[in-house]
């Protein structure tokens, strides 16, 4: 089943022709409407007319998350502010988030892509989607919501958390599809198990869409067995609309990336040169249809590879593998992007906290921040330490929007470290 069959099975030649046309059109709009891009083009002495083939994209400048931050809030709009109808944000390494804007057309287009994804996995008009991603500034839930409504199925905007209520909703309304993070899916499956709920017997679930966090094939199989459903991998990032950039078809062998909307490059993160097809590299994406805030060669920092060969489902859009990792040290908790630098900045602003810290990620929802106290801060007063602990918890919560457990440690307890490996200890086994 297809949502937009003619474009989903389009010939590669025709697809590339559309891509080139859309790329040239995007470049013209950026050149004339966005001073930031205009300057970038001037810096490398390029005019829109110089882009004559898809390969010419390699001559174009990159866009990084720092560029998004520096142009915060409205700097990257390619249309008048009045044409923007929705704002989403995504966290950045420093205080300011990244702002992503949608025009009416952008919202409609992102919903079309989700509709393609859902139909691709076999969704029919009687399906009921329980959307367990976070509604709000993050893109995860709303973009999926609009796409499911476009398909015309019933959407339950459950949001994350409150697992008992989630299960009750499934029981009461007969939800058939779930949209959630893999860590929450594991937690949900455990809770069902402990309550003696057998999904195959007691619920109507058919499939789940797991995204926003990287996870392994083993986790997929484990969850499919526990829940008795099909699980489809979903890839997206706020800067590129959110979910629906790439999605698995029923063969579950890589995610089709909608190439009429996104031009994908896989680059060696060190040399910025393209890697041969099938090799791992950083995913770099260019929006081809976006109106409000087109982005050129956006460095996603996600490491994946393109799966060569065409898919048995007949779709001609290339497939990407699951995400193997990140070029940077971002990690994701409850579908929320978090950078260790955000945590560091909060901690360093609190009196009594020493230099060193560590972030431990356990099962769903459990994030422990281990903090060393300063030698001189300690005066034997337990109330003072408790107050420090709650101050750290509150400040972290308002920065990262996830409430961590805070553990106070003696100075000198944690290994002195730099970089992600030792700062973030991920025991989630996703």
């Amino acid at each position: 089943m297809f949502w937009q069959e003619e474009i989903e099975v389009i010939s590669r030649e025709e697809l590339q022709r559309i891509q080139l046309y859309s790329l040239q059109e995007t470049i013209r709009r950026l050149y004339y409407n966005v001073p930031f891009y205009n300057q970038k083009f001037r810096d490398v002495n390029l005019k829109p007319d110089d882009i004559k083939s898809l390969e010419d994209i390699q001559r174009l400048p990159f866009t990084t998350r720092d560029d998004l931050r520096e142009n915060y809030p409205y700097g990257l709009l390619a249309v008048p502010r009045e044409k923007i109808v929705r704002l989403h944000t995504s966290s950045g390494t420093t205080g300011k988030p990244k702002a992503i804007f949608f025009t009416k057309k952008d919202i409609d287009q992102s919903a079309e892509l989700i509709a393609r994804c859902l139909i691709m996995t076999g969704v029919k008009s009687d399906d009921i989607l329980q959307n367990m991603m976070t509604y709000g500034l993050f893109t995860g839930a709303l973009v999926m919501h609009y796409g499911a409504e476009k398909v015309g199925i019933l959407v339950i905007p459950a949001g994350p958390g409150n697992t008992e209520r989630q299960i009750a909703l499934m029981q009461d309304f007969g939800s058939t599809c779930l949209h959630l993070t893999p860590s929450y899916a594991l937690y949900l499956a455990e809770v069902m198990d402990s309550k003696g709920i057998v999904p195959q017997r007691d619920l109507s679930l058919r499939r789940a869409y797991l995204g926003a966090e990287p996870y392994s094939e083993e986790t997929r199989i484990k969850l499919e067995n526990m829940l008795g459903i099909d699980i489809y991998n979903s890839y997206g990032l706020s800067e590129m609309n959110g979910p629906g950039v790439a999605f698995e078809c029923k063969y579950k062998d890589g995610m089709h990336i909608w190439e009429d909307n996104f031009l994908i490059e896989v680059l060696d993160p060190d040399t910025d040169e393209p890697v041969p097809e099938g090799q791992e590299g950083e995913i770099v994406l260019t929006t081809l249809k976006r109106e409000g805030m087109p982005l050129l060669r956006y460095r996603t920092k996600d490491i994946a590879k393109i799966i060569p060969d065409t898919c048995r489902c007949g779709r001609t859009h290339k497939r990407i593998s699951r995400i193997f990792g990140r070029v940077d040290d971002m990690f994701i908790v409850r579908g929320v992007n978090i950078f260790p630098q955000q945590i560091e900045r909060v901690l360093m602003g609190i009196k009594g906290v020493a230099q060193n810290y560590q972030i431990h990620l356990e099962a769903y929802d459990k994030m422990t921040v281990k903090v060393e106290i300063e030698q001189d801060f300690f005066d034997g007063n337990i109330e003072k330490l408790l107050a420090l602990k709650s101050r750290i918890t509150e400040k972290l919560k308002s920065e990262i929007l996830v409430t961590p457990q805070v553990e106070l440690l003696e100075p000198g307890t944690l290994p002195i470290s730099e970089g992600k490996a030792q700062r973030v200890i991920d025991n989630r086994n996703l």
Partner: protein
Amino acid sequence: MAKIREIAVFAENKPGKIEKITGVLAREGINILAITIASTNGFGIIKLIVDKTELAYQKLKESGLTVSLNEVLAIAMKDRPGQIHDIALVFSKNGINMENAYVLVEETRKQAYLIVQVKDIERAKKLLEKENLKFYDE
């Protein structure tokens, strides 16, 4: 009025902390006169009164522990029922909050003291001296 000082040691909820402290003190021939452990969700504080306070403080610090030295009130207790209650009454009458309290028994076992931590020790001393309470004499 003589003062008495208490050593406080920060302790994560990790086994072995007390052994480490007592080990250091035993090696230096320091006697523990009183010990109390306040623990909360996640961490705790071990408080000690010892016979060689300054030496104990230095040695514990050298061993890598997070230590602080604080002045506390040591109020002589009479050997009769309701004594702690009587002292508590004096405190509340004077508007002094007992933040932490435990009992220390003299080595000769003749006299017991109530060790009390308060926020403003100078103010507390001034008020309590008027109340006919006796203090530890170092």
